[in-house]
């Protein structure tokens, strides 16, 4: 940190420059944080958006036990022992989360699941997992956000609402950002918004196209046909709510721009059609490269959800929904994704790292989580932590803990923590559990491979 950290000793106020906000996938790295070291509070977060301010200014280290076992306070060591026993004796443990922690913790987490032969999944499976599957079918044409800032003269937002979920997306990257070939900011760009309703992101757009609910795929497919010069029946308007004239106008703009980009959100990946929708929009961008340079890229929500995909991919070859029961990685979304595994009642133990499925999974999945021994790592007492056998209190990544996070476009950024914490980091807890599980598995007698381990389960 060196020069970026200036200590003002008189009031014990510290300033941390170029810190990164981990609230959303924008991963803005231009925070200037003013920290009151005595009060252990962040008092100012210059450059932060409304969400970032909420993250930094409300940060408070709660005085909680290091661990809870069955809701009762426990030491870290006791928590680690209990967690290790659960995992060493589990037949089919499910690991989930990872989108709000460092890559260093994610890496250790995959090492742990590999060793115990469990299943691992990230929050990707409930946001842009279908986009990951679409990539496997059709590829993608993508770019880092700086290239879009510098070059894009046509920006299309589809099925997402960055004004509310990624508040600085417009100013930093794609609408009012000043780039190399876009010196006049918004004047050098045409902004299009496609959505089923008028979101708060619509006013910034030059063109708004309202598509009927559930008709994104049909609209995308019709656009692909038009790009390729095929006939499209004017009746398409009845199905999509968008006239053929509007489509033709958009296609002309897309073919004639210099550098076009399609940003898409969960309005595509998590609605009717899912990976078909994502594949359609990725294909549309690829098709357009016959005429000009065109990009399509998902807008990601959590701070380091991209990192979870990236880490799991480099360690296993697959981005999410990976099972190790046979001693090597297997990939099968639907079978090895967390919400399905819990809802079917397959998992006999769970480890939730930096996520709160207890608040947003289906009731069937939550009901099953209540029945099995769960391990949770989180700075807060989340819904999931409340139903866990072992709940660890960990420090907050980006505020208390350094490490690496990947922006939604794959640019890795090193975090600059500003406040110490008495709580261990996610990585430290996972490492401790790993070490203990390794001991248990190595000294266990009568192991005939993984199957015997399963028979011994509770």
């Amino acid at each position: 940190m060196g020069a970026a950290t200036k200590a003002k000793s008189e009031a014990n106020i510290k300033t941390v420059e170029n810190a990164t906000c981990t609230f959303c996938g924008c991963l803005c790295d231009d925070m200037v944080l003013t920290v009151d070291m005595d009060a252990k509070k962040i008092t100012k977060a210059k450059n932060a958006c409304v969400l970032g301010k909420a993250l930094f200014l409300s940060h408070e280290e709660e005085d909680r036990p290091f661990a809870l076992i069955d809701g009762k306070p426990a030491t870290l060591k006791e928590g680690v022992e209990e967690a290790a026993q659960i995992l060493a004796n589990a037949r089919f443990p499910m690991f989930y989360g990872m989108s709000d922690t460092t890559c260093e913790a994610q890496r250790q987490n995959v090492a742990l699941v590999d060793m115990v032969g469990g299943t691992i999944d990230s929050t990707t499976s409930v946001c842009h997992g279908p986009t990951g599957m679409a990539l496997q079918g059709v590829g993608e044409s993508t770019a880092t956000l700086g290239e879009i800032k510098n070059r894009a003269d046509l920006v299309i937002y589809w099925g997402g609402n960055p004004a509310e979920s990624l508040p600085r997306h417009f100013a930093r990257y794609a609408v009012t950002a000043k780039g190399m070939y876009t010196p006049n900011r918004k004047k050098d760009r045409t902004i299009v918004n496609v959505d089923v309703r008028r979101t708060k992101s619509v006013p910034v757009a030059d063109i708004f196209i309202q598509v009927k609910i559930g008709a994104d795929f049909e609209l995308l497919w019709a656009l692909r046909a038009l790009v390729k010069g095929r006939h499209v029946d004017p009746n398409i308007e009845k199905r999509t709510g968008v006239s053929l004239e509007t489509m033709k106008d958009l296609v002309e703009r897309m073919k004639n721009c210099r550098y076009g980009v399609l940003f898409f959100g969960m309005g595509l990946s998590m609605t009717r059609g899912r990976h078909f929708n994502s594949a359609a929009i990725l294909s549309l961008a690829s098709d357009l490269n016959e005429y000009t340079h065109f990009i399509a890229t998902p807008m990601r929500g959590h701070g380091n959800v991209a990192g979870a995909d990236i880490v799991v991919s480099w360690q296993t070859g697959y981005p999410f929904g990976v099972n190790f029961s046979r001693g090597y990685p297997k990939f099968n979304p639907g079978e090895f994704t967390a919400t399905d595994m819990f809802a079917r009642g397959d998992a006999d133990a769970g480890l939730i790292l930096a996520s709160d499925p207890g608040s947003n999974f289906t009731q069937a999945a939550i009901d099953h989580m209540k029945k099995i021994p769960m391990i949770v790592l989180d700075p807060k007492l989340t819904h999931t932590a409340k139903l866990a056998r072992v709940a660890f209190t960990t420090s907050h990544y980006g505020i208390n803990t350094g490490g690496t996070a990947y922006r939604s476009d794959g640019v890795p950024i090193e975090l600059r923590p500003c406040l110490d914490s008495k709580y261990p980091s996610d990585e430290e807890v996972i490492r401790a559990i790993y070490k203990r599980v390794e001991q248990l598995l190595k000294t266990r007698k009568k192991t005939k491979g993984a199957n015997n381990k399963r028979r011994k389960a509770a």
Partner: protein
Amino acid sequence: MGSTLRIVNGRVYDPANDVDGKTRDICIKDGKIVKSVPPKTKCIDAKGMVVMPGGVDIHCHIAGAKANIARKLQPDDHRRDVHPRLDLKKVNTRSGTGGTVPSTFTTGYRYATMGYTTAMEAAVPPLLARHTLDEFEDTPVIDKGFYILMGNNVLLYQMLQEGRHEEIRNAVAWWLNATKSYTTKLVNPGGDEPWKGHRNATITQLNDKIDGYEQLTPRKIITSMVNTVEDLGLPHPVHIHCNNLGHSGNYKTTLETMKATGGRRIHITHIQFHSYGGKPNENPTSKAPQIAEYINNNSNITADVGQVMFGRSTSMTADAPLAWMLTRYSNDRRWVNADTECESGCGIIPFAYQEQVYTHALQWAIGLELFLLSKDPWRMVLSTDHPNGGTFTSYPRLIRTLMDREFRKQQMDSVNQKAVAKIKRGHHMEREYTLQEIAIVTRAGPARILGLKNKGHLGPGADADITIYDEHEDKELMFSAPRYVLKSGHLIIDNHEFRNNHEGKILHVAPGYDEGIKDVIRPFVEDFYTIKFDNYAVSDHYIPRHEVVPTAKQ
């Protein structure tokens, strides 16, 4: 108190020290090769075996953003080639998947089990260096480094346009330090601007003007970088992927590029892909004899072959227009393009080289021609441009193809005969590489070209990276399964079994530069990148185990 070991009775191939198959003892202490060890030291009896330095891969794509997209892209590539973890009670390894782009752990283990102990990732956009280093942390056993892409760097363009050569030297040195990289790489220099900015065009002539830069041509970029790297005294010269890769008639560009350097050192990579005659958009012919002759006669040039091997591959390159061109020839619908701001392009497509396809068979034969016509194995070394021409796991088969004339003939007879007919016949086709020559093209040569003084040989002071093979008539079998592999003195493969894990180190350079250059780079990064300048440079804890390879001035 250090660990010592002696390898006895083995036939040693150590070309850097002029040892050609003589029986010698090799002594090891504390991870290094030494002159002698105490008499009671533990021994490996290598009777009937061949002892060589660990293999050094000068050019491969194994880690970082593009390799990882290629992994994500191809579940079909992984599922039929899994890499299980070993029994925890014996050795704690990680599982993974293979295929053309293996997961990181599998990459490390498979290099090691093949007797390779060093590998260089050949194309990393500087902005994404952290990603490559992250993956290197999870790539076990081998030592590794990477080259940063500098041939389409917009800030350097601006400096070069204005003739600010002193600043270019400082900026390149800053970038090498900021990324912990090994050297600079040029890929299709000048090609990104037309690709990104002008409807997916590219550049085809060394003297073509680059869009938006009146004074700039690929030739200027190449000569500027050659001079810069020479001034900095980097251990490895500029690593060049020439313009027009894969296009018929491109051998002229390749010759021009080699001539443009005015006698200074350069390394031309995967030169097989740059040795084609014929007219653009028509079938290629072989110009391997012309390319090989030029290299034979000019000692400033080194090259790796970039051999094509039949079977599945993944084409992944910073040369985005090339990948776009290849989509026309691929029967796989998947295509990836990935632009990195101000620095690079990238293209990925799954690919398969087929014996019966004229172009593929010709590419395969051109690679062999280059090997067989090369008079100096120290300057024409082995690579498949993994995984572009083929995977690194196909090296043993390639070695057999070079060493075994009959095996080569059988293959020649079974591939597209129109292609084979295009190859120059002659005495060279009878050549069989010797074990000593194989030791040169797979370890001693790459190490020397890289300027790695402690690699690729078995003299005192060298890293104890050693491979011991059973002698075998079938050279593919021999080179795919060494009996012993030592990495930094640790016995990794013991009697064919993976016994010990090991974490390799990062090899990088740290040339000096004028701190004032930061004031020049800073405003550009703040304006045209999307991260803060102060967050750009990679901090030291991304390289917990590393070695700074000195420049000529250090």
